[in-house]
């Protein structure tokens, strides 16, 4: 599959778009960018882009309808008596809700039909078999447009924001479509909100030298992560996840570690390319990662990993559910019964359950993804329930929770839990994930490291060394960022020759140590199918 790391994108498509964008007059530039985005979509998904156009039309029209309703409401409220205003507002809210539901039915309907129907039908058939009902439906198979899960959430965020009056619905169809189809965001996000991006793209300001240089560095940094680490470990990951039964627990753990490493480098590397592309144009795209492996808890991890998805779920699922009247009432009762910590925890757990079920299913139509969501739900809820006794324990034994060693322990514990979760995520199915986990525990052994099995996975010692050095380099950059250092800003302040040397060095390191050409199979974009 083509990726943002491919030659087609980096050396053909991107230069042509940059050049066209820079030389065309402003009035044409935005349509050129729109055409480039749809051209890219067509290249990836062919006629399936019509589904995307349908979603754009749907949210544009429903957005306009919501805007009209709000304008009508404001006019009516202005003209009405004070006593009638509440009723008018309530009536308008009800009508708006129906339009929002319609938008949800259309957008999520397309997503569910194309992506989840085979999963549901397959499970229904299984249920019928289990119940002895002799009805078996044909499991359909649909071609799914690239990035459907990303642009569906993005489209719905627009509708919700219009409903909640956080923004005014856009009358300009092309501006809305440009935001929903902007080519760097198509495959793996991040899920960008309309309010922060649409107008900026629509302004189509000229490319500035500083933005371009910094964007280019960010792109090269992403390519480095993907080609040196993610692609290099691919053969070992493939082998270990396919034939895990041939290896002992140590190798299964290695599989989990390598995949976690691969996924982070692939996903965050792609996001670096995406954000770097935006930066070259002068557009600030939302960050999707904030040094996730410095997290001390699973909750914190999810506020640093795939940030745009977490924010979407928090804003449009968790908060509305938590603030719903039934849950508010329940919170009140629980608070009275279980106290101020555990009371609200019970009700927030209900909202969290919905969030993590959605999160798991969003990642893919499969039980392993649902399990992945439930695994993190269980960890977060357990963490919240255990927080008071842990604090009490630490205080009782004079353990300083701000101490470096204690924080390091928390980070390693979180990383370990995440790694185990990723094992289920990558496993061929939930059954295989459970078997891998069982093997990792029951056959825990370091024998495979002693007898050299770990060097027979399509990676030799030099491969492990270069992967480790690159991970170390990324760790140092992350550490600098964590401490608030603006790495690229500092580098840009250096003389031109130093900047040229940095660019040249990055390109050289990628071409020298990248895993490409004969003998390597690059990893497909892991999140592109979501």
């Amino acid at each position, binding site marked *: 599959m083509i990726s943002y790391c491919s030659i087609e994108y980096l050396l053909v498509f991107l230069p042509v778009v940059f050049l066209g964008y820079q030389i065309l007059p402003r009035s044409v530039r935005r349509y050129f960018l729109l055409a480039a985005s749809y051209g890219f979509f067509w290249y990836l998904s062919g006629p399936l882009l019509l589904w995307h156009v349908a979603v754009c039309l749907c949210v544009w029209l429903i957005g306009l309808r919501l805007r009209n309703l709000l304008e009508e409401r404001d006019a009516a409220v202005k003209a009405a008596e004070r006593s009638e205003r509440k009723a008018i507002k309530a009536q308008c809210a009800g009508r708006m809700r129906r339009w929002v539901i319609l938008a949800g039915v259309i957008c999520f309907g397309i997503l569910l039909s194309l992506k989840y129907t085979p999963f549901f039908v397959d499970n229904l058939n299984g249920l019928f078999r289990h119940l002895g009902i002799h009805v078996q439906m044909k499991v359909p198979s649909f071609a799914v447009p690239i990035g459907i899960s990303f642009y569906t959430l993005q489209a719905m965020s627009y509708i919700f924001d219009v409903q909640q009056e956080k923004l005014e619905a856009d009358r300009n169809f092309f501006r809305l479509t440009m935001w929903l189809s902007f080519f760097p965001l198509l495959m793996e996000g991040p899920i960008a909100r309309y309010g922060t991006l649409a107008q900026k793209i629509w302004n189509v300001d000229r490319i500035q030298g500083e933005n371009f240089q910094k964007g280019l560095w960010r792109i090269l940094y992403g390519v480095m992560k993907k080609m040196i680490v993610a692609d290099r470990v691919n053969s070992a990951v493939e082998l270990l996840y396919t034939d895990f039964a041939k290896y002992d627990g140590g190798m299964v753990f290695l599989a989990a570690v390598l995949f976690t490493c691969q996924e982070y480098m692939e996903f965050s590397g792609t996001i670096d390319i995406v954000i770097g592309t935006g930066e070259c144009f002068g557009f600030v795209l939302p960050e999707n990662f904030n040094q996730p492996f410095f997290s001390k808890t699973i909750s914190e991890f999810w506020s640093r990993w795939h940030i745009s998805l977490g924010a979407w779920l928090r804003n449009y699922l968790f908060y509305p559910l938590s603030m719903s009247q039934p849950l508010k009432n329940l919170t009140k009762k629980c608070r009275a019964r279980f106290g101020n910590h555990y009371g609200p925890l019970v009700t927030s757990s209900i909202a969290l359950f919905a969030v993590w079920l959605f999160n798991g299913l969003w990642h893919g139509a499969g039980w392993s993804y649902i399990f992945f969501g439930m695994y993190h739900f269980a960890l977060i809820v357990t963490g919240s329930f255990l927080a008071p006794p842990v604090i009490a324990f630490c205080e009782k034994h004079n353990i300083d929770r701000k101490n470096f060693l204690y924080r390091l322990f928390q980070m390693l514990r979180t990383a370990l839990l995440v790694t185990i979760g990723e094992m289920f995520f990558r496993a061929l199915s939930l059954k295989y994930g459970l078997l891998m986990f069982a093997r990792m525990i029951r056959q825990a052994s370091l024998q495979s490291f002693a007898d050299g099995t770990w060097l027979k996975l399509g990676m030799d010692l030099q491969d492990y060394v270069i992967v480790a050095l690159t991970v170390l380099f990324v760790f140092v950059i992350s550490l600098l960022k964590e401490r608030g250092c603006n790495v690229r800003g500092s580098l840009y302040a250096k003389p031109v020759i130093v900047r040229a040397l940095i660019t040249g060095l990055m390109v050289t390191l990628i071409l*020298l140590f990248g895993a490409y050409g004969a003998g390597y199979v690059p990893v497909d974009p892991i999140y592109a199918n979501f």
Partner: protein
Amino acid sequence: MKYLKKIIPVFLTLAVTAGMLWLVSVLTTPKNNMQEAGHDTWAAFGFEAEPENSIDVFLLGDSESRTSISPMELFHNDGFTSYCCGVNSSTLCEVSEMAQLVLKYHHPKLMILECNVIFSPFTWQDAFEAVSARFFPVVHWHNRWKTLLPQDFTSLPDYDNVEVRKGYYHSAYINEAPPYMLDRYMQPSEEREPLAGISRWYLKKIVNDCRKQGVEVLLLSMPSVKNWTSLKHNTCSDEAQKLGVPYVDLNEMTEEVPIDWNLDTRDEGDHLNNDGMKKVCRWLGPWLKETYGLEDHRGDSAYDKNWTDLYEEYVEWIS
């Protein structure tokens, strides 16, 4: 001045990057066409060690080409010089690059393209890598950072290792073709094997590159039960006609080249063994010599060192 201020950093960056890539290219390129020097396809590149313009016929392609013809055999029997530049699992974009390299060092009378390679799939990415490797060999040799030798830091590439087998891959194994393969081998058909647009483009490019240098081109299909079909034959025949080059399919010439698929193959009908190669050379040598008017160099002292004197060593290799 403002314009210059914008342009200078761009050119400086490009120049510095190119310089660094050149440096690592020199470092990673094997310093000789020998396995010991880290060359993965040393045999195919042995023509660089031959005196300039001393080769009459070059054979390009994948493993089918380097297992079906032995240049030493042709020289011994028919007197003209040839070289097999075939590389295992090669693609047309790589063959095109090889053709460019050959034409840089030699001016042969004939360039033979073995047709199995025409159907090997490849992408624009592969093509880009192949072209980039011409300018920055690190693109091809990047994995050599793992096995750099002391000489890699102290010397420049100099391919002077004269290959005894002239690119031929010898094998005396006999591993007969299974009957089910023989049953479907060259079943008559009017259909055509699909050919990718990029492959067609490269095929035309190779022919044009050779023509520009006044080198004739021959499309040739070597016998292979596993790889060859009538569909492929039809496609190659069409392409040859379009390009105006001759096409010879040895799979159809069972009387002239009587391959016994129980004895003349080393790997179940995929490639020929030494006996199969000899049958091909026995017919192809005289035919090439006559058709293309190739000169007989036997007895010419200029060819003693690299050809006549090496024949005995060659016989030892293949026996």
